[in-house]
């Protein structure tokens, strides 16, 4: 019997079938590690019993016990006090056909492994390294959303590559680079060698100096900028936090007007694009920070009901689909030339230990490049940053170039001091 025939959705019962496959290739210097293949099929049951929303994820083989499982869920609902709609609200959902690159489905993993080995050899023969390690991850997921009289299917393929190098200089500095691919032609692992070697040459022999970071413009490369947005902005955008005003991020806060952060769930080629969330709520474009001002909360259906607000389609694994920071007009190189005294921040150690609700952070930067009069002067290590996130973003520049880091598409950030 077909799975779909076993699932009989009602006004208070719906399902999400999720089928995923992932493959991981890990290479340490010139040694390929055991390839890892994981397969998973789950069914999420979403129900309402007596105005209480209850969800449970089961394995496919448990479907034969569905009646008993629903009975258990009914008992669970008795404990819950948080109310929900009497039946699932209906939303108008516009199906969108995915334009993701289907060529990823036929990847040759042996070729990728050989490309990684080539990259490692090239890097090690150009720069003295203590270790080079790479991981190629391929994730494929197909979700089928089943509600009364309607079915939606969303498929995503997400290949990513990370390379991490430890230099064999006195500093022992480590450097990592992440690549996220949306089109097959971007997957040119051999060609990454040039960029990585250039960066390693720039950062080698970093020295520890006692400097006052407050006197420098802070330049956050795309990965580090994505990290701080996730920690200080996205983590504080929940509806409940918005209602209670329990974080520094409220409507009175004003960043530089150049800061615009928005979500676009309909990017053709992104694996994170989706036209509905796991609450069966349609996703939509939204401006989270508009002209430097906090503009839009993100919520699930449960909290939207609790606070009598509109749901936003953000019952998603990472809370958002595709997050964009609006880029600037000037290329990165020009902004560097305009920098009199600056620090390019690579890696932020201990960001997660800082209190994102309070908006201040004291962290260590294991590696930074000092910029003086528009030129990179030297590599520094172990610099302390003591910053207030809001103050830091009062005067900013954003580069023209952007890059993807998982769900985030961001430019380089320049925090100017005056």
């Amino acid at each position, binding site marked *: 019997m077909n799975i779909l025939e076993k699932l009989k959705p009602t006004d208070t019962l719906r399902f999400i079938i999720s089928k995923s496959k992932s493959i991981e290739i890990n290479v340490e210097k010139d040694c390929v*590690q055991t390839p890892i293949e994981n397969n998973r099929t789950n069914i999420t049951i979403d129900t309402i019993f007596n105005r209480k929303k209850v969800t*449970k994820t089961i394995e496919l083989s448990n479907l034969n016990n569905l009646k008993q499982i629903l009975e258990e869920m009914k008992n669970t609902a008795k404990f819950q006090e*948080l109310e929900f709609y009497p039946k699932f609200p209906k939303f108008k959902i516009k199906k969108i056909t995915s334009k993701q690159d289907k060529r990823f489905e036929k990847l040759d993993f042996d070729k990728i492994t050989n490309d990684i080995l080539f990259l490692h050899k090239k890097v090690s023969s150009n720069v003295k390294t203590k270790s080079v390690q790479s991981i190629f991850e391929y994730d494929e997921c197909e979700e089928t959303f089943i509600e009364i009289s309607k079915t939606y299917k969303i498929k995503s393929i997400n290949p990513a590559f990370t390379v991490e190098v430890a230099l064999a200089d006195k500093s022992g500095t480590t450097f990592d680079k992440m690549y996220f691919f949306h089109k097959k032609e971007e997957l040119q692992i051999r060609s990454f060698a040039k960029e990585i070697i250039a960066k390693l040459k720039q950062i080698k022999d970093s020295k520890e100096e006692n400097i006052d970071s407050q006197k420098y413009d802070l330049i956050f490369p795309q990965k580090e900028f994505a990290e701080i947005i996730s920690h200080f902005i996205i983590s504080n955008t929940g509806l409940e936090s918005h209602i209670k*005003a329990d974080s520094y991020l409220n409507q009175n806060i004003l960043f530089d007007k150049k800061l615009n952060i928005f979500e676009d769930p309909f990017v053709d080629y992104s694996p994170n694009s989706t036209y509905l969330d796991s609450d069966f709520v349609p996703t939509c474009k939204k401006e989270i920070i508009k002209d430097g001002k906090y503009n839009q909360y993100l919520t699930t259906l449960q909290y939207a009901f609790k606070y009598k607000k509109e749901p936003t389609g953000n019952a998603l694994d990472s809370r958002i689909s595709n997050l964009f920071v609006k880029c600037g007009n000037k290329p990165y190189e020009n902004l560097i030339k305009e920098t009199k005294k600056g620090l390019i921040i690579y890696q932020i150690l*201990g960001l997660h*230990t800082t209190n994102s609700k*309070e908006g201040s952070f*004291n962290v260590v930067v*294991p590696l930074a490049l000092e910029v003086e009069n528009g030129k990179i002067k030297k590599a520094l290590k172990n610099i302390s940053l003591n910053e207030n996130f809001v103050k830091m973003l009062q005067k900013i520049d954003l580069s023209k170039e952007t890059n993807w880091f998982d769900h985030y598409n961001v430019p380089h950030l320049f925090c100017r001091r005056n």
Partner: protein
Amino acid sequence: MPDFESHIDKLQSKLSSADFYRIFVESKKMQFCLAKDGQIETVKKESNSGISVFYTLEKFSYFYSTNNPEDMQKFQMKKGKIKSLDYVPKESCIKDKKELGKESFADFETVIKELAKTTKLSKNLVSNTINYYTKNVNRRIVCANTDVSQTTHYGFANFVPVAKEGQKIRTDQIRLGRTNNIDKSIFSFLSEAEELKQNTIKKLKYKEGLRGNFDVILNSDLSDLLAHEAFGHATESDLIYKNQSVLKGKLKQKIAPEFVSLSDNPTPKRDMWGCFYYDDEGFSAKKRELVKNGELTDLITTERYAQKLHLKNLGGARCESFEQIPIPRMSNTSFEQGKDKLENMIKEMKTGLVLKNGSGGQVNTATGVYQFGVKEAELIKNGEVIDHFVNITFGGNLISALQSIVAVSKEMDYSLVGFCGKDGQSVPVGGYGPNIKIKNVRVG
């Protein structure tokens, strides 16, 4: 739950031509409750299971997992073209069945109603949240001559209050985690939660932004964090082998004063959060004396890295679930008990800080640089507390930190209840440690 156990015999015959195989069957059952602001918001009862197979054929190895028994019926070994094996996998040849802790017998409804009461809001408290769960995890590891089964009963609770006054916001957290049920201890935890609410409100008055170099006393929570995060990770044999640890080449060398000892101990004791009898390769888990009387003595190994580094395998292979290959991981990592009285350690301090409770940490094992968040600090002058601070960080280099330890307390306490992340895998880790005093530490 799907019955993967019944697939083991068939799978073994399919794997009979492999040079080596390890079958890993896992099943989990969990009861979860989220109570927030005086209300029970979410109750969940989940169960899941899965199976994985690691096999080798000449110089090729492969790892396959699924949670669908139908996939297992179709499973066939494949032989890859690219060499992916650089050691000779071995098995423990142990056949045993163990149970760690006891299942919870508490009335779930009574417990969660108490949780909800504790999360009621009051003046200055804008949010109170408790996560509570009981979880039973069964893992069975089968190789040609090995069959090890281990059931662990976990009990966990986490309380987070948020206090607010004007624009000032303070958050804090306490955790309870045991490899046993927490039927009794949950009630003393709830009393501690009540105290924490008041302390969080009090902290609205505390200052922020303390910076400088100080002599510090780390309470047991922070000393465990230092033992685990700054030091323990650097003793993981994969990082040593891959040249990613500052401790490479320092085995059997003096790296700390004579009176400093530090261990990682998974053997079941005090129901600590990171205990286990057998590691996830089926080997017996033994205490690792990472630093003994100041000397780097043991490392944390898996079978592969023990072979690579010519070390004894002390059973340090752990994985988050059946979907991952086990890697070297810590369990319960702490400094060993010292001889100093905490009271005297404070009295003898001219100017310094008592740092209390960590909010996480991070280390770059290749350089030894670490950075920790601290929830509260007491500024000490001539042995007396003269001021309080919040939201502090401290950091430095792990080797210099070890060498700068000047006192270790007699007093020990349960402290670390954490989830350690590495290579995308999270495992429960614990600690039971002393207070330690370190000279000249960078704060802020």
